[in-house]
């Protein structure tokens, strides 16, 4: 279960300030003590329950990534209270921030350790991930030679390896081909059988409608709508036409 009550998140931007800011996209900009901040999330209240598969939608700079990082406990709210119950796993980047000059296999070993696996379960996870990614001999090639799609396959397989209660995914399917996207969807659907929570930020309406039963629409850091995926997607589509 995830409960957000009047959550506001202010991110520092830089020290150079101007008197006032007006933007069409992105959260509200403001200055305090000579430092410029963006109000990445503005007074968000929502309740996310087990079994919810939430698609987070919105224009660029609407606060989607900030919301996911907040739920992952990477950012702390500036105002409001946040309650997250369950083991969280993240897939925010397809390179995982590891070693591109090392092989995929080595990165898998390190990646699953970062997610908390240890001992014999690391070796089991490596074999399972190699099978899922279909990378074949590429698993022993340095990751710098991988295409963005191959990195996405590996990153997704690692992030979904630990069977989390809550999976947070941010815009990583863009680089994957259709066969991988289908496979990833099946994997997520299997994970959801355990009444887990999926929160997926994407610009792809087809991915959101396929994976999610609810949608959360953010606009300049504010919650525009939250509810049934068809309803919210319909409103969002109408707003951007």
């Amino acid at each position, binding site marked *: 279960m995830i409960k957000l009550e009047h959550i506001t998140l202010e*991110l*520092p*931007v*830089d020290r150079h300030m101007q008197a006032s800011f007006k933007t069409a996209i992105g959260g509200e900009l403001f200055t305090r003590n000579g430092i410029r901040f963006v109000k990445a999330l503005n007074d968000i209240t929502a309740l996310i329950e087990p079994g919810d598969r939430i698609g987070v939608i919105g224009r660029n700079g609407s606060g989607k990534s900030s919301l996911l*990082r907040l739920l*992952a*406990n*990477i*950012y*702390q709210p500036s105002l409001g209270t946040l309650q997250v119950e369950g083991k*969280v796993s*993240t897939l*925010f*980047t397809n*390179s*995982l*921030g590891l*070693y591109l*000059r*090392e092989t995929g296999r*080595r990165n898998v070993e*390190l990646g699953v*350790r*970062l*997610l908390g696996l*240890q001992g014999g379960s690391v070796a089991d996870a490596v074999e399972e991930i190699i099978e899922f990614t279909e990378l074949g001999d590429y698993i022993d090639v340095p990751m710098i030679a991988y295409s963005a799609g191959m990195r996405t396959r590996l990153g997704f397989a690692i992030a979904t390896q630990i069977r989390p209660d809550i999976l947070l995914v941010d815009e990583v399917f863009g680089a994957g081909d259709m066969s991988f996207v289908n496979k990833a969807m099946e994997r997520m659907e299997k994970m959801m059988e355990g009444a887990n929570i999926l929160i997926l930020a994407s610009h792809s309406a087809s991915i959101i409608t396929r994976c999610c039963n609810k949608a959360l629409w953010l606009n300049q850091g504010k919650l525009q709508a939250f509810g049934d995926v068809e309803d919210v997607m319909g409103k969002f589509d109408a707003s951007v036409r």
Partner: protein
Amino acid sequence: MSAFSDVSNALRQPNIWFVLGVQDYRFQFGRTAAGLLWAFIQPALWITAIGFFFAPFMGNDSGAYIIHVAFGLAMFTFMSGAISEYGLCFMTHKTIIQNFSLPMFIHVLRDATRNTCRLATELTVAFAAVIFLRHSLEPVALLAVFGLAVNIIAAVAISLGVSMLTVRWRDIQFAIRAVMRLMFFMTPILWSVDQTSGARATVANINPLTHFIEIVRQPILGEVPTMLSYGVTSSVTLAAIIGSYVVFGLRKNNIALWAQT
């Protein structure tokens, strides 16, 4: 998560920080033919060159001088690395900080592991010099183990504190870099405090790095470190632990925000 739970959670996960730290160290030699051998070749070459060019001026003490330089250099590289190189910890690991929910202190321990790996290889070379030069170690040499422990604890605490400052104020890294270059000459690595007098001796004695080096080096050379050295190192270590922990406790939640700007 409070600062205490962050630190204790991190300490309980050596499967992350130790493995990644060793990997970081090993990785810098990736795709080289000699591999990890470079870690030994570099300090060995330095010490040999110093021995060749400077030791003849030391007469009968040339062997002791080479050992003096070898241990001095290893400990200086370790402590200066903790301040300048690993004092950028939260900026170095910002991608992982932004993508994984891990205790912040784990990144400090990861870098400390890497720095300690480098120290281990440099000390191996220094001990090889001890054997090669047939320098006999006295029982007092065991005090060097205590000295090493103090150095490692201080290095972790200092890295944490400096990393908090550098992730918040980006100017600090450049100031530290400038000062550390000067410190190499202000610290008795190629020379010793006994050979100096006046202002130079005063500077050496008020330089904490001198004392961090001496609590390891002097026992190896058969001498008990002075109470001044133990006093300075224990005070600096205690101050670093308290100061860094307080700052970490107050501003830990801001690290991910500052790191992304």
